[in-house]
């Protein structure tokens, strides 16, 4: 992880209040793995904003992020224009472990703004000849994004809370319907992750967690999650954000 300047080379709205931004940077594009994030530092904001890396184009040094405008920081971020630069720490945190999954089936489960890191992971798994299934949950039709992109790398199921697109319900409703899988990876709101780990107890699984961050580098102890280890906790920013389903207590 370094403090880097990233140059915005494209930015566009892709769903309700949701933006896709393409950033050019050598260090991050060369080193990032799925599940890692950028800790974006913006003038006028005391704290960094953690945003997952949604895709990497290594050849062209492009890092893609997808973000939803929910407060002042993401609002400001959406206002940036092509050519401007942003500061960020990255690649931050530990991503999804790259295990030997070849020929196996992996289930990706993304909820809302937890969908982005699933894309880069799915793409990489597909390249490694893994059979990828994806369940993506959104609030309503107008929040749905990246369906086509997922279709290219995974057998993709969309659910919406109100049924306005895809199936009606929650991602957990589909867990029984997608067939067998060897391992799962998930990112999304905590209640969703909790429901999934409860339902899939015993299965090998990896979860990506969110917490309000101070430093973003492991120094301030803002982003604790109780854990089954000696110290009794893990830091989401530096030990995570990805954990195995058993190692933390949610």
């Amino acid at each position, binding site marked *: 992880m370094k*403090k880097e300047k990233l140059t915005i080379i494209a930015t566009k709205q892709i769903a309700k209040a949701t933006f896709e931004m393409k950033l050019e940077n050598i260090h991050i594009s060369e080193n990032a793995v799925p599940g890692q994030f950028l800790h974006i530092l913006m003038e006028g904001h005391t*704290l960094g904003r953690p945003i997952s890396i949604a895709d990497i184009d290594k050849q062209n040094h492009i890092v893609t992020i997808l973000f939803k405008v929910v407060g002042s920081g993401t609002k400001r971020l959406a206002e940036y224009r092509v050519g401007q630069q942003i500061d960020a720490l990255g690649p931050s945190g530990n991503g999804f472990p790259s295990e030997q999954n070849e020929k196996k089936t992996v289930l990706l489960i993304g909820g809302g703004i937890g969908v982005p890191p699933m894309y880069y992971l799915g793409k990489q798994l597909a390249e490694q000849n893994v059979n990828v299934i994806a369940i993506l949950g959104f609030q309503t039709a107008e929040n749905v994004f990246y369906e086509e992109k997922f279709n290219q790398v995974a057998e993709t199921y969309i659910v919406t809370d109100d049924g306005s697109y895809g199936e009606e319900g929650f991602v957990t409703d589909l867990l029984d319907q997608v067939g067998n899988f060897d391992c799962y990876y998930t990112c999304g709101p905590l209640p969703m992750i909790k429901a999934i780990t409860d339902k899939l107890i015993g299965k090998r699984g990896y979860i990506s967690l969110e917490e309000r*961050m*101070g430093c973003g580098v492991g*120094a301030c*102890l*803002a982003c*604790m999650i109780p854990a089954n280890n000696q110290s009794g906790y893990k830091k989401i920013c530096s030990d995570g954000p990805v954990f195995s389903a058993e190692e933390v207590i949610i």
Partner: protein
Amino acid sequence: MNELAVVLPGLNLKNPIMPASGCFGFGYEYSNFYDLSELGAVIMKAATGTARLGNPTPRVAETASGMLNAIGLQNPGVNHIIEQEVPFLAEYDTSIIANIAGSTIEEYEMVAEAFNDTEHVHALELNISCPNVKEGGIQFGTDPQMAAKVTERVKRVSKLPIYVKLSPNVTDIVAMAKAVEAAGADGLSMINTLTGMQIHLPSRRPLIANKTGGLSGPAIKPIAIRMIYEVKQHVDLPIIGMGGICNAEDVLEFLLAGADAVAVGTANFSNPLVCKEIIADLPDVLKRNGLSSVQEAIGKAVFI
């Protein structure tokens, strides 16, 4: 002579810049960004008698030009710090200050004593001002008699110089400073955070799980400057100043107001390289303001 050098009880600083307690862990993470030997000193995260898990999350919130935190003194305990954390920092050519806290005077004494035999720790910062724990901490920091008592007791058992860290959440900061001066403090460290709160509108509840948190960052700088200026007029102790420092101009403002050295907290979160950058900028900022050294700047706005 080095124009940035400052000599304080126990501390022979090559420059007056040190990361503030709790904002820099034990240095490990920031050593990935620059060589910690560039720092005047490092103030470690608070140490208590035994390991503490701190408060539930969320523990931080952003505010206008500042932040709230309620970490709650999470730390692995003083012995673990001495065994596992100090050796890492000791590899660098920088002074080390241990921030000590406790729920009882006995705990303060025990922690202070534990540092007596670690040659690499050069001074103690007596944290009587942490607003984020139920017991100890702030009650020692808002009552001059309690503050004097804990200072005196710690002073008695410790071989190291003691910088007492004052809370700004008081009616009369000068009374607090005088009380700990009389009790034998070797220096002051000010200010700790102001107690604040943010309400999370969607949940209609305080955002920080602990409800209140400590306000830090540029928002509080005018309060820090005022308190240091007031205390400098009435108390002879050296002062490590802090509260909202983001750049070398801010450092000069603190020096002029009466700080002998400064600590940088929250700004590390906005820019992990901030301490290094401030050290690099400081000589030029001094020169542009007609000052030839840090020493010359100290207290210039107070004694005129």
